[in-house]
């Protein structure tokens, strides 16, 4: 079972390396969307500082939506998904491996570049740590919740739009806690409560989402 898990992880990493344009698209999308806010709102430092956490989090949400549509689509198109469904390894384990790589190639780059982008909003340096930590805890949750939606809408016509409608409302608690962590740190309350809640979201999502996504895959492949 662990051999299959390792093999899926190595395979997806190899595919990401050999097709790096997919990874770069998500990262560039994130950078551009975040950069549009200061351009559109104008150079008013106090206002920018206030909206920074929210703007960055909304951009991360949208970037994660963009990445989601491809999680299972390629495997579905070339028949690999059928083999995974009929494999000797529990499907939940395979999905967990795929989600780990998905976060490493589409989530982690966002987390790493977010502090740099936050400088455009004149976010104080002491808040950069909280912002990065909240994204590091929150983006895997986005991917895990999204995987369930991606599995359910697999192979549907107009699946992309439907996926957004299904998944974006579920992202709301993560957005509130994620952006809230930096905001409450900014007013001196510290972001611990929100970060701990994000951590709890992550633990619950990591434990259950792969199995639910596996079930959803079986339903949409019937």
């Amino acid at each position, binding site marked *: 079972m662990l051999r299959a898990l390792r093999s899926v992880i190595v395979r997806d990493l190899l595919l990401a390396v050999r097709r790096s344009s997919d990874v770069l698209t998500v990262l560039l999308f994130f950078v551009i969307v975040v950069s549009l806010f200061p351009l559109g709102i104008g150079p008013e430092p106090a206002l920018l500082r206030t909206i920074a956490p929210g703007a960055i989090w909304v951009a991360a949400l949208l970037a994660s939506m963009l990445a989601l549509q491809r999680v299972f689509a390629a495997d579905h*198109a070339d028949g690999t998904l059928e083999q995974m469904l009929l494999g000797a390894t529990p499907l939940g384990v395979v999905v967990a491996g795929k989600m780990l790589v998905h976060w490493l190639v589409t989530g982690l780059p966002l987390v790493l570049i977010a502090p740099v982008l936050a400088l455009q909003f004149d976010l104080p340096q002491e808040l950069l740590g909280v912002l990065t930590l909240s994204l590091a805890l929150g983006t895997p949750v986005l991917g895990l919740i999204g995987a369930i939606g991606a599995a359910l809408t697999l192979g549907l016509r107009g699946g992309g739009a439907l996926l957004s409608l299904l998944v974006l409302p579920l992202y709301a608690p993560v957005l509130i806690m994620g952006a809230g962590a930096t905001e409450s740190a900014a007013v001196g309350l510290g972001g611990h409560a929100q970060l701990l809640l994000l951590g709890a979201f992550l633990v619950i999502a990591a434990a259950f989402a792969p199995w639910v996504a596996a079930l959803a895959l079986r339903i949409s492949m019937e």
Partner: protein
Amino acid sequence: MRWAGENIRRLQEEFWRQLVYIGHANAIKDDLSAAENLHVACALAGLRAGEAEVREALIRLGLAGRENLPARVLSQGQRRRAALARLALSQSVPLWILDEPFTALDAEATSCVQGLISDHVAQGGAVMYATHHEARFSVRAALRIDLEATC
């Protein structure tokens, strides 16, 4: 549907472990080489296959010298052969279900796959396949269903 008296929906992985299914789609990734594709397929199926065995299986299907090329540059027939190379490593798996295994294969590869199927049946395995090609096997027991005749 039952396998050894048990409902396959209940058996799940127990049943799939004893099944090789090669469908209409090849399950070959364009960005991976034939050998890497075969490694992944074996790992998902729970088969243990080393470097040497994978290479041998690909050579048996006539892909000698092309093991490490990305599947993108292989022809349709070569991709089909890379997918079917899994059969050469699956002789211990009792049930094979194949959908049009001979599509896009030349005469040489077709006879190679027929050889694999005959060997498997001779060792006591079961093969179920659908085909448009006239295939000749020397097997002990075969049930042939002609869909055009029954329509």
